């Protein structure tokens, strides 16, 4: 969740490094720093704050043509100047930046302190330069020293190191992404290609266990002590696609991109005349027919998409579906791994916990499927098959368009599995696919009512807390609506299955706590109206996203949802996204970079 950059070439490294950090900034943002190879030594600049704060600290230019940089999101130690990366050894000649967590750093630190090393920070990272210092003192070369230290580290990491007397950058990857960009007489390093995409489009992705040495001529990689060739891939998409395009925030841009994202998700995959879906998956029909269970593993918004999809798959494919928060996942008893498909849902494809769950499942022998937005991401390499949601880059930390694209893609998957298993007729499939194809237009209709949502947000923005309720497919949407509001407005928000309101949370409902209810097709609206009445009678204002005007009289504010069957709650979700956005914007929150959060969580 932090960002790493590096440069080795002939140009002034400093602006290239800070530029790369700026490109990565959406990933982490409580401190930033660079280490430049200058003369016989290393110069480090680092500071608390965003990359602009770092730009104010560093000189305008420098002689250095080699360096590394980092932008950090705290895991170990508070955001302070000392805890910012790069970290150095006692001599100041070894500088290291790191993403991930070194699990055994306590023991290593105690040992190093016992030997007389002095630590400047509270981070796990700082053990690395001190360990390297010891190995160098034993007469090893920088690369040998780095290799020896890697053998002692446990945990997940992407590391980049520069050493005083060498124009090389040393890299290591273990469960945390790292890639190298090939320019003309210069080489770039990034934890993500967006770090350097404007300079280099030919990219080498490192694999777990790789140790790499970068010079201006390129990269050499070794794995288990053997020299290996990693393929060079051409990046087709553009970093510019990640610009804000006239919107105040990426999040609002991405909310408005949902119709287009959905069209891309559906394009070429749906034949509603035949009632069939072509997802290009390699799952044999015999296998799908033999399935006893589909397990969905995911975190955060992707988990909510999984809950939604579970209802669809169980209903249409007649197979048991369980949804697991990835960090709680274990392949437990009573299951036949050969008859269990494990589906990992992750936007970035790098979510550490989801990857961990997927690998656990694979070890038991279960077949795995990745549902992701990111071609070439770790999850696609770890899973047997990959299904892309094609939403395009998502920069806002709060996921929006990827949620709707995940659900739409999984709805197609549900139809596909149902057809193969013979549990869904062509006619039924055709009707569902018609509803899915109705999504882009229906979502656009909700977006066109943005002014109305803003007015509702203005009315209730200063409330004490917000409750979101819904049943059936409205339940995951209620959870997701509450999550969005929490993430970006920092308000207290909870989502409940509507029926649960009376079993406890109703005690929290007052005139000061608006209730947002999902009252659409596919969400048992009539039953939910009972919960609406319960809230109303405690004086709470109720805002309803409703199809068909059901219960309009009970509601203080209504937002109209077109009737598109089981897809209707997804349109309600668009209103809830806009509501969260406007509440947060009215409060002046840092919407694209909410406090304490990062886009893709690559540590467990």
């Amino acid at each position, binding site marked *: 969740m932090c960002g790493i950059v590096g440069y080795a070439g002939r140009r002034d490294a400093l602006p290239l490094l800070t530029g790369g950090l700026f490109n990565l900034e959406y990933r982490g943002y409580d401190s930033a720093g660079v280490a430049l190879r200058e003369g016989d030594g290393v110069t480090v600049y680092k500071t608390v704050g965003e990359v602009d704060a770092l730009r104010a600290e560093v000189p305008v230019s420098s002689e250095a043509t080699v360096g590394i940089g980092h932008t950090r999101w705290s895991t170990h130690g508070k955001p302070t100047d000392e805890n910012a990366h790069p970290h150095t050894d006692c001599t100041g000649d070894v500088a290291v930046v790191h993403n991930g967590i070194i699990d055994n750093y306590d023991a290593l630190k105690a040992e190093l302190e016992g030997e007389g090393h002095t630590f400047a920070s509270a981070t796990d990272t700082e053990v690395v330069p001190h360990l390297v210092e010891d190995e160098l003192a034993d007469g090893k070369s920088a690369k040998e020293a780095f290799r020896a230290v890697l053998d002692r580290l446990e945990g997940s990491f992407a590391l980049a190191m520069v050493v005083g007397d060498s124009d090389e950058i040393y890299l290591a990857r273990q469960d945390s992404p790292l890639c190298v960009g090939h320019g003309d007489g210069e080489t770039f390093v990034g934890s993500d290609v967006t770090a350097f995409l404007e300079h280099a489009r030919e990219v080498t992705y490192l694999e777990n266990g790789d140790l790499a040495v970068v010079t201006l001529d390129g990269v050499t990689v070794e794995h288990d002590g053997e020299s290996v060739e990693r393929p060079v891939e051409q990046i087709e998409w553009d970093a510019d696609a990640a610009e804000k395009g006239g919107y105040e925030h990426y999040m609002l841009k991405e909310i408005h991109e949902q119709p287009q994202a959905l069209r891309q998700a559906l394009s070429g995959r749906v034949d509603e005349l035949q009632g069939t879906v072509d997802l290009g998956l390699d799952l044999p029909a015999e296998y799908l027919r033999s399935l006893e269970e589909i397990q969905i593993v995911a975190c955060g918004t992707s988990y909510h998409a999984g809950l939604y999809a579970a209802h669809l798959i169980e209903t249409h494919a007649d197979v048991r579906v369980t949804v697991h928060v990835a960090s709680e996942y274990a392949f437990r008893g009573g299951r036949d791994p050969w008859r269990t498909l494990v589906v990992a849902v992750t936007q970035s494809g790098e979510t550490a916990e989801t990857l961990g769950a997927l690998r656990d499942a694979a070890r038991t022998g279960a077949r795995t499927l990745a549902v992701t937005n990111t071609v070439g991401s770790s999850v696609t390499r770890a899973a047997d098959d990959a299904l892309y949601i094609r939403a395009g880059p998502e920069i806002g930390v709060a996921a929006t368009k990827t949620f709707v694209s995940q659900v739409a893609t999984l709805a197609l998957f549900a139809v596909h599995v149902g057809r193969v298993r013979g549990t869904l007729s062509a006619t039924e499939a055709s009707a569902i696919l018609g509803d899915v194809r109705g999504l882009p237009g229906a979502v656009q209709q909700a977006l*066109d009512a943005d002014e109305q949502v803003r007015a509702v947000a203005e009315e209730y923005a200063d409330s004490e807390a917000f409750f979101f309720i819904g049943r059936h497919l409205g339940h995951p949407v209620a959870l997701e609506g509450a999550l969005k509001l929490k993430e970006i407005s920092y308000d207290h928000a909870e989502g409940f299955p509507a029926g649960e309101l009376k079993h406890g949370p109703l005690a929290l409902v007052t005139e000061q706590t608006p209730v947002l209810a999902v009252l659409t097709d596919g969400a048992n609206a009539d039953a939910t109206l009972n919960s609406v009445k319960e809230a109303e009678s405690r004086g709470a204002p109720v805002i309803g996203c409703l199809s068909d005007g059901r219960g309009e009289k009970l509601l203080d504010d209504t937002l109209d949802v077109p009737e598109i069957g089981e897809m209707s709650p997804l349109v309600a979700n668009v209103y809830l996204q806009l509501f969260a956005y406007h509440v947060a914007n009215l409060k002046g929150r840092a919407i694209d970079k909410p406090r304490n959060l990062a886009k893709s969580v690559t540590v467990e």
Partner: protein
Amino acid sequence: MKAVILVAGEGTRLQPLTESRPKPMLRVANRPLLEHVVTAVRDAGIDEIVLVVGYRRERIQSYFGDGDDWGVDVTYAIQEKQLGTGHAVLQAESFVEGPFVALNGDRIVESDDIERVVDALRETGETTLAVSRASRPSDYGVVSLEGDSVVDIVEKPPKHAAPSDVVNAGIYGFSPSIFDALRETTAEGELAVTDTLERLVGAGEVEAVMLNGQWIDVSYLWDLLRVNASIVTAETAESAQIDASASVLGDVAVGDDVRVRPGARVLTGTALGDSATVGANAVVANSVVLPDATIGAGAVVRDAVVGENATVGPNVTVEGGESDVPVNGRVHADVRLGGVVGDNAHVGGATTLAPGTVLGNRVDVETGSHADGRIESDALVRRA
């Protein structure tokens, strides 16, 4: 050089279609008017574009993004309140450094003509105005010339008083000094570019460039059909599914993921927007069908605009042809407009639409009804 394109206006004469999108986002040949302008600007060799957006700007921003898909750099200047074209140009001040071209985003022009303005601006450095001849000059700003110099501009003069048939074609070449000139112009209410031009004309500072190419204006709903028919060419997206027993004949544009069902016939002068569906045995002719619209089995849709995500039920008849259509209190006689179905409207099966019917957005028409005239958005039309 940069181009500043003015796209902040609403276009009230084109309601209901401009309730949910600004006029430059109306589509002909499956592309927004503005996209035709952007490609013409690019083909004239300008790759940096400033869009002055305002009304419903999300539609424009989400469509064009940063301009990469068109090979141009697009940035957005925001005009919060629609206070006239002059005020709109002022909003672009911080985005341009040197001389620039300014034009309207809802008028299709040819790239050669934009180049002509660019060349004249490069040569003289003076304010440049593109002019052309018009058959009904009194609908526009009428220009009087002496040689290449503009000596007078009269906005929409009465027919008998038009001093010439040369009119302002709406492409301007400006140097940054225009911003001061705009600021110094006092206008009652909205500030139009032409208010400032009238002042500069008096000082003999405006150069005219006569255009050779066509320029196409969309003022009324039926213009959409006329303009669409005149520029649409046969073009079918790869992802479209056209049944083997359906026919698509003549100049018909078929967008991404369009479905044309068995036995349907789509006839010349038609554009089917992305993900639109034409049901079995339906007939669609000389029509603009916007994205996500559905035309039911057996429907006949002629000379019509079908709004985004609208549903035209089975066996609906929009017979097409000419009719008298009132717009903002004025009746336009004998215009070819079979009907307009607003965005997200639902026309129940077997309904008939009299020629010239305009259904607002989200209008719900009961099965078997007859609709006529202009029906406000969100209305329910009951079977008589």
